[in-house]
């Protein structure tokens, strides 16, 4: 599904040059559910951004679903994102003035689906995350866990092959975190490749594979969780 080969990425700030990813090699098979762990500054988020085609990389090669992702135009990247990738963010990032259903329907809008089909699909996916009754509510009227479930419904509505979750439980209490991770497990069982960035051991424990990053390198691509 995902194949990274010697990925290099550095940020230039003023005269500083920050080497964030150093020759990262990584293979993720289709249907896997993996966690990416590492201390802050280890390059987790940068890696996710590159995987999500939100950022470009300086060296190496990245194949997603067999296609080489290199020097994409913004428009091309946008098209690939909407076809292949779903995002779940730490701070949910729902659009505040839209209802839950409208938020979920948004990716379909960019796929050019008609209003009626968007609405139907949005309700179907809200049903799946158990929030059908909340369809007409705005994000501000929902709890964090509910918002994140709406965000997951939104990430899934376009039937992506890869779901990228950047600290999906970072803003939630442990009980809700558990619920969200169960939901992601269920999504994974349905065949979507799921990649979760986290620094929480409990969360990582609910995935089937842990990738450890340290100082911009993959320290361990099949790490064991340290015992508690």
């Amino acid at each position, binding site marked *: 599904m995902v194949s990274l080969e010697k990925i290099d990425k550095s940020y230039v700030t003023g005269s500083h040059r920050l080497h964030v990813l150093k020759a990262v090699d990584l293979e993720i098979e289709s249907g896997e559910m993996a966690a990416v762990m590492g201390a802050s500054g280890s390059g987790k988020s940068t890696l996710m*951004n590159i995987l999500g085609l*939100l950022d470009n990389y300086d060296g190496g090669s990245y194949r997603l679903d067999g296609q080489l992702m290199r020097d994409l135009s913004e*428009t091309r990247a*946008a098209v690939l994102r*909407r076809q292949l990738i779903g995002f779940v963010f730490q701070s949910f*990032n*729902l659009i505040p003035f839209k209802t839950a259903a409208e938020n979920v329907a*948004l*990716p379909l809008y960019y796929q050019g689906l008609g209003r009626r089909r968007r609405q139907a699909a949005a309700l179907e996916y809200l049903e799946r995350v158990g929030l059908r009754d909340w369809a007409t509510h705005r994000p501000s009227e929902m709890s964090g866990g509910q918002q994140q479930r709406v965000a997951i419904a*939104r990430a899934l509505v376009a039937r992506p092959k890869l779901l990228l979750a950047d600290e999906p439980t970072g803003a939630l209490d442990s009980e809700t975190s558990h619920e969200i991770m169960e939901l992601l497990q269920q999504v994974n069982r349905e065949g979507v490749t799921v990649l979760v960035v986290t620094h929480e051991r409990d969360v990582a424990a609910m995935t089937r594979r842990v990738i450890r990053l340290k100082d911009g390198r993959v320290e361990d691509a099949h790490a064991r969780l340290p015992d508690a």
Partner: protein
Amino acid sequence: MLIVLLGSGVGLGHGVEYQFRDDAVNSIWVFPGQTSVPYKGLQPGRRVQLTNDDHDEVATGVEGVDHISSRYFIRGSVQVRYRNETSTFNVRAVHPDHLYLEKTIVVDGRFLNPLDVRDHRKVAVIGTKVKDALFKAEPPVGKLIEVNGVAFQVVGVFSDEGGERELERIYLPISTAQRAFGGANRIGQIMMTTGDEPLERTSAMADEIHRRLAARHTFSVDDPRAVEVENNNEQFARINGIIRGIRIFVWIVGLGTLLAGIVGVSNIMLIAVRERTREIGVRKALGATPRSIVLLILQESILITSIAGYAGLVLGVGVLELAARKLPPGSYFRNPEVDLGVALQAMALLIVAGLVAGFVPARRAAAVRPVEALRSE
């Protein structure tokens, strides 16, 4: 704002048209006066008396004359009687072409015709007010009225846009009136229209008329007071020029206002884009292309300018209506109005303004990198 200004421009135009409403715009009027400079040993201060011959000379000698009529004025007040009704009216003795000069509208019967003049027929055309006063509900055509004791047959009734006073007139054939009321061959003034002749031609015509009359009545061609030749073409053109200037000025001011508005909306949109960086980033992450982001911002910008513009339009029309009602009648500012065409133009302008105003913010929004947008708290 733009609408108020544009409407005012239109109002000014209407005011001018109103001043000329009653008379043909393309006309030349000839008034006799007194000589003011000595000429060929003759003293200044002589009165010039125009005659039928002058009329004929101008009618046949000057090229470009379209319709021509003279007027003969009956001295003193004129008593008009029909059966037991007697009243005083203003009587004008004219040629048939007078119809075109005063923009007279015949509502019943006919106007004077050349045979009336040739045969000295005793016929009259009366204004609607005269008809109301003398005939009440009776149909007047064919009836006999007495003008200063002379019987005339009514052949027509007319109306006129020039106002009440114009409707209290009676028109008689000039030849009949001259004979019946002791006018001999004297006429009071000559008036003519110039058809489609261009402005320079009409000025030349006015000069030529003055020259010919100077020769006939022995006064200096450099004496403007002996006979005054008034060219309405020139006046109309001059005033039209002023109006056009004012309208252009009004447009410039209006566009300036609009420009300020565009800058304002543009600024607001820039702030909105900054505030919504995060939302834009999310949209991009969800698969929005830069193009769709640009369209989103432009749509919103156009929406803002359209709503604001429409409100302005309504307000502007309201102000104009109010102004139209409060202004004293008969002034140079009259019936300010905005027609559908102007309103549509304004709306189109607003949409364009929205596009222009949204352009920079939209570009800024499209340039947002999703990574940074998502990071910004």
